[in-house]
């Protein structure tokens, strides 16, 4: 009767000979320096795949153009739907609400965030047209955070 297959170990993780071969193949094809690096790469790639399938549960840099907007995009997210500034982790609502909290003009906000003035004005127009969504998401973020056991208030 055949015994269990020989086991190898990478970073304390037990690897079957078949999977070790796959990791070596990956290492060769990607020009990586070690099997450990290949294991790390495969884990990250798997996570990226899962994220794209599940609409990025922990955030992603994937952006989708929004018709009618030049500086605003939609970033895939499990529940946030409001637009973000292109190439930034800055939501349109976050930008406009910070302007209001700090009494800023669009020119001052453009300087603060290193954005073209047109991008700030576009975010303001978006905010005006989507206030209900933006306010709902602000409430939703707090609600979700309070549902966790780790948020501490004074």
């Amino acid at each position, binding site marked *: 009767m055949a015994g269990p297959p020989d086991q190898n170990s990478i970073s304390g993780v037990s690897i079957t000979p078949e999977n070790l071969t796959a990791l070596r193949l990956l290492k060769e094809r990607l020009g990586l320096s070690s099997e450990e690096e290949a294991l790390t790469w495969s884990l990250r790639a798997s996570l990226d795949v899962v994220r794209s399938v599940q609409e990025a549960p922990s955030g992603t840099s994937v952006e989708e153009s929004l018709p009618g907007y030049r500086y605003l995009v939609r970033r895939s997210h499990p529940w946030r739907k409001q637009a973000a500034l292109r190439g*930034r982790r800055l939501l349109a609502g976050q930008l406009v609400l910070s302007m209001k909290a700090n009494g800023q003009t669009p020119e001052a906000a453009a300087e603060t965030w290193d954005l073209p003035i047109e991008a700030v004005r576009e975010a303001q127009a978006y905010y005006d047209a989507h206030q209900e969504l933006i306010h709902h998401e602000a409430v939703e*973020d707090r609600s979700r955070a309070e549902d966790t056991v780790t948020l501490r208030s004074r």
Partner: protein
Amino acid sequence: MRLLLDENCAAKQLVTALRDSGHAAVTVYSAGLQGADDLKIWTWAQHHGDTIVTKNVSDFLELARTTPAHHGILAIFDHPDSRKNLSWVQIAKAVSNLIESGLQIEGSCHDLNSWYF
């Protein structure tokens, strides 16, 4: 303790207000993390021992559950009533109040809005 300001908090005035209050602060821009996803920012912060300051609170709390021994999250919530939102100077004051309280930052997520007074 050093603060890592997430992109939604990386306003120049907040960096200045924090530094004027004696807090070490870096932004995702200076860390080369512009546009990076939550996981990358989280990993960077844990590697460098930084406390994350963010408005994308619920996303980071999800990551915090996977890393109980993290370096802390300072959460800023936007309120639909803009008069209830903190200005940058008020955020810096809230950070000072929290730190002066002596409460442990590491391994915790603190609601900064509640610390402005």
